[in-house]
C-alpha cells in the first residue's frame, strides 16, 4: 500500500548521500529528503484525526516532493494545487476533493486567509513544528486507510470550468513511473530535468520517475531558453520531457549550442506535435534520441514515436505502448475505418481510478473500458496514430471542419517562423474564419510568403485569412499554447473580414 514511500526508502538505502534534487543553486540528498519526509508524515498524521487530504500550495518543488512522499507514507491523499488559481477557484477545487489540510508557502498566506472551507488546517511549509526528530507513526490509523486507494488528485479544469479531480492510486503512480523508466531505459545514473509545475501531471511524472529510481532530479521553476541550457550543461542532464512550446522556444539555441548539450541522451516531446524537420535537425546536431509521446493525465503515456520510426512516421505520434490499445470513434461511438479522423479512445492498464466523487463525469469519460480523450486523430494501416487536435479546437468554416494542426504544420515550415498557433474567429458569413498567430525570428514581413506556402500546401478552405505577428504566444500555466487566450484576444478583431467576398458574390 505504501509503495511510493517504500521505493523511495529503498533507493535512499543504496546511496543516501547522493543528490536527489537540484533546485536553482540548492542541492538536497536522498537522506535529507527522507528525514524531511518522515518528519512531515508525523506532523500531518497528528494534525487531524481524519485521513489527511493534503493540498500543496507552493511553487517550491522541494515542498511538493516532501509532502507528496510524506502523504504516501501515511496512506493519505495529496492534491497538488496551482498557486495561480484565485481564492474562489482554490475553494472550489479543495471542496471538490475534501481537502482538510493545506501546506502553503508563506507568500500565499493571503490566498489561504480568504479560502472558505471549514474545517481545514493550514500549515506553512517552513513551519517550526516540523522537526527532524520523527515520532513513531500511529500505524493502526494508517492501516485503517488501506481500503481507500486515492493518493494523488490532479485538478484539471473541465470544459465548464468546474474542477475535474483526477484520482491516481499509489500503485498506479509507481507503475506509471516504471513505464517511463522502461520506455526510455532510464537508470540511477540518469539526470532528469523537470520544467513543469508539480500540479501538472507531467511535473508529477518527472518528479517520481527519477526519485523512485535513485536518479537525480534537476528542477527549473521558470522556463527560459537561457536557464534551460545552463541547467542542462551545468548538471549534465541526460533526460528531458519537454512540452512542444518550450522546444520551439529553444529551437535556435538547441541547434546553435549543440556542443554544450552532449549529455542529453533522450529528449521527449509532449503536449503537441513537433515538426519533422526540427526533430531531424536536433537529432543531427545533438545526436540524442528524440521521442514524441501522446497521452493524457487519465491514461499516462498512450503512444510513443521512437527514433527508429522517426524518419518515416514523423507526422505521427507513434505506436500504442505495451498493453495499451487505441481505437478511433465517430460521433455515434462506432469504430471508424483505418485512416478516418475521429475521437481517440484509449484502453490502458495505467488508467486513472475516477474523477473524485464525480461518477457522472467518470461514466461520461468512458466507452466501455476505453477512455475518451476528447482528442481527434486517425490510425494508419501500420497502426501509427496521428494526432489531429483537440475536439474543441476544431475550426468550422463554411461548414467544413478544419484541423488547426494541418495549417500549423505548413506555416511552421517557413524558415522565419519560430512558433505558430491557428485558431478560428467568429465570422458572420462563414461561421468561423482562420487566423494564424505567428512568432517570427527576425522578419515579420513574410505574410505574402505564408499566403503562397499555404496556397501550395493547403486547400482553399484551410488557409488563414489573417496573420498576426507577436513576440510570444500566451501559454497556460503548464506551458501549452493557450488557444483560449488567443481566441479571447483575436475574437473581436474581425471587423467583417469577409465583406470583400460578400461584395463580390452577393
Amino acid at each position, binding site marked *: 500500500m505504501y509503495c511510493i514511500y517504500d521505493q523511495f526508502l529503498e533507493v535512499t538505502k543504496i546511496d543516501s548521500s547522493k543528490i536527489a534534487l537540484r533546485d536553482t543553486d540548492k542541492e538536497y540528498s536522498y537522506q535529507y529528503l527522507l528525514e524531511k519526509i518522515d518528519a512531515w508524515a508525523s506532523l500531518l498524521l497528528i494534525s487531524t484525526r481524519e485521513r489527511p487530504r493534503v493540498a500543496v500550495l507552493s511553487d517550491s518543488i522541494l515542498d511538493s516532493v516532501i509532502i507528496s512522499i510524506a502523504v504516501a507514507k501515511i496512506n493519505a491523499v495529496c492534491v497538488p494545487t496551482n498557486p495561480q488559481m484565485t481564492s474562489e477557484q482554490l475553494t472550489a477545487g479543495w471542496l471538490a476533493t475534501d481537502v482538510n489540510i493545506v501546506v502553503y508557502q508563506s507568500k500565499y498566506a493571503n490566498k489561504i486567509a480568504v479560502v472558505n472551507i471549514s474545517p481545514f488546517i493550514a500549515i506553512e511549509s517552513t513551519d517550526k513544528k516540523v522537526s527532524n526528530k520523527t515520532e513513531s507513526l500511529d500505524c493502526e490509523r494508517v492501516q485503517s486507510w488501506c481500503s481507500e486507494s486515492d493518493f494523488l488528485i490532479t485538478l484539471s479544469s473541465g470544459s465548464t470550468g468546474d474542477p475535474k479531480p483526477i484520482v491516481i492510486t499509489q500503485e498506479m503512480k509507481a507503475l506509471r513511473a516504471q513505464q517511463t523508466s522502461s520506455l526510455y531505459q532510464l537508470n540511477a545514473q540518469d539526470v532528469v530535468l523537470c520544467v513543469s509545475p508539480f500540479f501538472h501531471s507531467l511535473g508529477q511524472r518527472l518528479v517520481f520517475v527519477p526519485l523512485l529510481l535513485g536518479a537525480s532530479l534537476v528542477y527549473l521553476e521558470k522556463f527560459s531558453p537561457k536557464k534551460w541550457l545552463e541547467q542542462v550543461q551545468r548538471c549534465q542532464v541526460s533526460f528531458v520531457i519537454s512540452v512542444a512550446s518550450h522546444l520551439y522556444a529553444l529551437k535556435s539555441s538547441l541547434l546553435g549550442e549543440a556542443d554544450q548539450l552532449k549529455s542529453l541522451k533522450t529528449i521527449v516531446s509532449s503536449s503537441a506535435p513537433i515538426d519533422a524537420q526540427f526533430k531531424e535537425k536536433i537529432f543531427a546536431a545533438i545526436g540524442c534520441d528524440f521521442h514524441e509521446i501522446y497521452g493524457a493525465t487519465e491514461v499516462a503515456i498512450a503512444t510513443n514515436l521512437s527514433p527508429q520510426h522517426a524518419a518515416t512516421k514523423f507526422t505521427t505520434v507513434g505506436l500504442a505502448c505495451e498493453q495499451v490499445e487505441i481505437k478511433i470513434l465517430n460521433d455515434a461511438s462506432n469504430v471508424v475505418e483505418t485512416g478516418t479522423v475521429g475521437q481517440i479512445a484509449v484502453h490502458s492498464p495505467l488508467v486513472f481510478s475516477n474523477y473524485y466523487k464525480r461518477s457522472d463525469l467518470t461514466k461520461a469519460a468512458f466507452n466501455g473500458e476505453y477512455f475518451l480523450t476528447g482528442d481527434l486523430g486517425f490510425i494508419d494501416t501500420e497502426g501509427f496514430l496521428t494526432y489531429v487536435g483537440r475536439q474543441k479546437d476544431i475550426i468550422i468554416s463554411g461548414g467544413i471542419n478544419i484541423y488547426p494542426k494541418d495549417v500549423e504544420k505548413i506555416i511552421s515550415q517557413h524558415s522565419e517562423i519560430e512558433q505558430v498557433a491557428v485558431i478560428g474567429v467568429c465570422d458572420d458569413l462563414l461561421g468561423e474564419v482562420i487566423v494564424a498567430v505567428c512568432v517570427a525570428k527576425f522578419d515579420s514581413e513574410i505574410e505574402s510568403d505564408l499566403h503562397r506556402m499555404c496556397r501550395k500546401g493547403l486547400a482553399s478552405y484551410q488557409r488563414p485569412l489573417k496573420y498576426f505577428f507577436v513576440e510570444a504566444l500566451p501559454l497556460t500555466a503548464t506551458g501549452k499554447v493557450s488557444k483560449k487566450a488567443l481566441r479571447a484576444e483575436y475574437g473581436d478583431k474581425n471587423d467583417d473580414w469577409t465583406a470583400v467576398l460578400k461584395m*463580390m458574390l452577393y
Partner: protein
Amino acid sequence: MIVNTVLDVEQFIVEFISDESDMEIALIDPESDFIETGLLDSFAILNMIISLEAKFKVKFEPQELANKDLRIIKSLAKAVAAKLT
C-alpha cells in the same frame, strides 16, 4: 512602368487561378470572369484578394469590389496596379 505592374499583377492572378483550378496557365484567358467561369470557389476568391493585398501591399475597400468589372482578371490587375501609382 504601370504596364509592367499590370502584367505582374495579372501574372500573379493567373498563376493563382492555375494553382487552384489545375488549369494550364496558357489556357487561362485574362479577359475571363473568374467567378462566372467557376474557376475559383468562394474560399479561393477570398484568399486571392487577401493574397493580392499582401503581395502588392494594397488595400481594397469592400465597396470597391462590388464593381462587377473586377471579376475580370485584367480589370482586377489594373485596379491593383492603379493603387500602386
